[in-house]
């Protein structure tokens, strides 16, 4: 069966200043754990969950984001999907918590280039300067009328995730922004 995210990214969004790439298929789980059980849960599950809201940890294969007082997101590749599921089911007996598969609820984008932060800031009101939003910081926020999640992966690189049906709307803004920056630069 064909995996199809059905999202078109404007051809112009591949320049050095602003590149927007659609992420390939990912496995995503939303975890809800009582904060006071976090340490024990981490030990039992082996998941590298960060303790503070807005923090993330990344391994070569997994990204862990703390998005709320009792809420985490784990993102990995589909090859690790079964292993992750087994871990989550294994710990279910010992802990009171919730895990829900949201792999296809979201789509992810990688924005890079020196205009990446500015491109997000056309719709997102957060301060994305390096001081206020350092590498590794994650936040659930908004992009105009769409709820989004952002993670800074490098100085000039962000991962942006949204629910799948909001993606064309967000990409539409990036297209318009690209038209503007290329016009001003060539001016």
């Amino acid at each position, binding site marked *: *069966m064909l995996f199809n995210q059905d999202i078109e990214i404007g051809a112009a969004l591949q320049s050095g200043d602003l590149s927007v790439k659609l992420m390939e298929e990912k496995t995503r789980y939303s975890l809800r754990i009582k904060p006071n059980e976090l340490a024990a849960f981490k030990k039992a599950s082996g998941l590298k969950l960060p303790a503070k809201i807005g923090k993330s940890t990344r391994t070569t294969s997994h990204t862990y984001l703390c998005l709320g007082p009792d809420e985490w997101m784990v993102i990995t590749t589909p090859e690790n999907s079964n292993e992750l599921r087994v871990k989550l089911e294994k710990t279910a007996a010992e802990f009171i918590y919730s895990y829900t598969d949201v792999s296809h609820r979201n789509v992810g984008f990688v924005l890079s280039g020196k205009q990446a932060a500015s491109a997000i800031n056309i*719709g997102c009101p957060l301060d994305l300067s390096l001081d206020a939003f350092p590498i590794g910081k994650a936040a659930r926020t908004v992009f105009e009328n769409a709820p989004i999640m952002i993670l800074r992966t490098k100085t000039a690189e962000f991962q942006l995730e949204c629910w799948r*049906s909001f993606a*064309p*709307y967000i990409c539409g803004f990036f297209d*318009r922004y690209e038209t503007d920056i290329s016009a001003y630069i060539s001016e």
Partner: protein
Amino acid sequence: MENDKNMPYRKSGKGAVIGKKAIGFSFDGTDYQGLEGDTLASALMANGVHLMGRSFKYHRPRGVVGAGSEEPNALVTFDRGTGRVTPNVRATVLEIFEGFVARSQNNWPSLKTDIGAFNNTFSMFFPAGFYNKTFMWPKSFWDKVYEPFIRNMAGLGSAPTEADADVYASVYGHCETLIIGAGPAGIAAALTAVKTGERIILVDENPVFGGSLLSAPNDEIDGIKASDWLDKSVKILENAKNVTLMTRTTAIGYYHDNFIGLAERITDHIPNLKLGVSREKLHRIRAGKVIIAQGAIERPLVFNGNDRPGVMLASAAQTFLNRYGVAVGNTAVLFTSHDSGYAAAFDLADSNVRISLIVDARNEVPKDIQTEAAKRGIEIISAASISKTYGKNRITGVEVYVPSTGEKRKVNCEALLMCGGWTPSLHLWSHSKSSIRWDDNIAAYIPDQPNENAMCAGACNGDFGLRAALQGGNKAAGGRKSYKVHERDFGTGTTFVNLPNYIDASKQKAFVDFQNDATEKDINLAVREGFSSIEHVKRYTTIGMATDQGKTSNLNAMQIASKAIKKTVQQVGLTTFRPPYTPTTYGTIAGYRSGDLFEVERKTPMDGWAQKRGAVYEPVGVWRRARYFPKVGEDMDTAVARECKATRDSLGIFDATTLGKIEVVGPDAAKFMNLMYTNPWVKLGVGRCRYGLMLGEDGYIYDDGVVGRLAENRFHVTTTTGGAPRVFRHMEDYLQTEFSHLDVWLTSTTEQWAVIALNGPNARKLIEPFIEGIDLSPENFPHMAVREGKICGIETRLFRVSFSGELGFEINVPSHYGRAVWEALFEAGKQYDITPYGTEAMHVLRAEKGFIIVGQDTDGTVTPGDAGMVWAVSKKKKDFVGRRSLKRPDLVASGRKQLVGLMTEDPNVVLEEGAQIVADPNQAIPMDMIGHVTSSYWSESLGHSIAMALVMGGFDKEGENIYIPMQGKTHKAKIVKPFFYDPKGERLNVV
């Protein structure tokens, strides 16, 4: 090039535009020459043109009053081609370029000969409130006669008729310090703030930085010319990495927590720019600290004839001379009550403009000013006034009146400069809800206590003069520098509420608000008519309203009103300043959010398939859903009838992805479900489904949906499409407040699953070959059950449910496989004549079964009892949301509207949804309305129309006839049970 034949009023060696390229532009169809850097106003005046518009109400000829964004009069229509026409732009801020086109407005047939000016002749009949009082009767005349007439006569430019061809941008931004205004105060503040290394934004509404420095080039700062100091300072700021400099950018509004709207004009000054590049940009800035250096606006004097073209603020004339090299006339008179007015007269005199006379309303003129005037051979008359002005479309002279002697004297001039003191600009400061206080020394309000981390510097703080501005800006940014400044003393002035005149007050036209055409008389009339609050006076006279926001008029109006009301100005108060500070296009406010980006339009993974198939869509919430799939030549009714029949006869396929989905997980999941829904959940077996009914706290139906239990501690809840976000919030709200003791978590999974609904007797046969790991036999997979397995090799949550009354399955697959699974099933379904159907057929099929749609058959006032759904309400549960309300006397009273079915006498009549129902069609109007139709369709299966309705005491009226008056005819219908098709539900069990 003095007295160039093209630009006879251009002065050589003056102004930043001198020496720049000559450019051609057009105003009202006449071609003129200007210079690069000119505004439309400066370029027209360089050509000797002062008449630029007609006034709002009286159509009086009007010229330029100011030199910047405070301009109330010279509003023009700026034309950049089809779809790019902007009315009501101030000529004083409009930058010209080669090929620039603008025209005057509010006149017919032409600016010079305007028929509407008869309003002026009869102006004694058009006082404030005239329209409200006169055009009252007869009432029927208002819509068709009075309002169109008034709208046509009054007003400014015409609203554009074409869609805006331009696009706009919007961004968010952050800084530690935002400095608004790049005059001497703003620049001094920026030079100090830059040293912190923090992010600084400096904005100015003009195309270049400098503010008042551009109008006073002879001043000296720290031993160098002001213009050199400006260049040097801007270079420092340009080279600083932490400073963002923005010209052509107006701070339009100051909102909570130092949130400022900046409107940047990007392309209007660039000729022939291609479409598609954003014309303007809204910057939404969150600033740590805001330094407001907005400056001050000179106050006009209120005297008879003060609105004739050629009468302008003294500072404006000075700016036109020093910044644009334009003399506002070859001869001029100054009328002043403040020392600062003399600066303009002296600068003009030094540029060979003849100052015929200076009229000072005050009794005493400072000695040094008298000396300066004498040096230039200029005569000053003190304790005098101007009693009238001469000229038609341009001032030709003034009449000077000396009240002590009664002497009158006519003096010829081409321009009259006026100066009534200065008004600090408090607009943004006031937007921020910071307080103001009255300062008697300058007879104006000045900033008092801030409400945000903000401060004012320079003239907007009441600190006038160059040195004060520099020091103020420096201090506001935390500096302690002392500037050495050589400048002309700013001086002091006196405020005159009524200037002496021998002409009867009722015959004078002394304008207070030029833009709204309101005079001193209007204010006095308002007060005589009993308006004693300044806010009421404002609304009655329209002073200080609309795009101008009282920039030149507020203080004069307030002082006139305070005298008439006989209260102090402090007691009278000041009207509220409202954003935007200057007129702002809708495009800027919308930013990128226009066209496709105006609102999110959510589409399902199968949407593209439906589009290829020629689906007609309808919006449901912010989703777009396929409403029906017409074949060539089919209208909606035909298509829907075909889709319904095909589904009942064989097999229909429907995209149900938009249904809201919430995964409820945790050891207390069943307990939580018990509290949120009316039904019992604890005993629902794993793998089974139940219809869930949700109430609000008020006991009324809030939402519904099928819920499947996937495990002891895991429920897959579905909601209505439009209700999904609301239901999620409702649940989360209760979980966090009332039921926080429960160990359960909610996750929205609406978009995780694509949902393919298959309905019809062949549904099972179609999926059988594609299913792995699920026993589909009716014994092992009964109606209202859910199983997990695979379909087409993709994991699935397979529900056996039916919203059509046929054998039905809802196939949940991960979204990004939805389209592939749909296509595979559709291909295989061809052997069963599989038919895609849309929301309209879905509605018909469910109505035939009497299934309600929340929000259509309920309206927020319908209880489960009213809907005939007490079966869904547990009688054993001790608590659930809405339970207590269900016992309220009015919710159990008899005679409530109840949901029933209707069968029309004429089977072909499909009732209007929303139509009212009466018991007796012969009753005199107004009849008693006993209910309304909620759902109504043609039922192809029954060969008869069907309807559902809410009718008072409807359950007891079964079998009775009721009447539905509709356009043209009243229809008769019988009340029946709302189960029209297969009432026993046997079709669900087809094997």
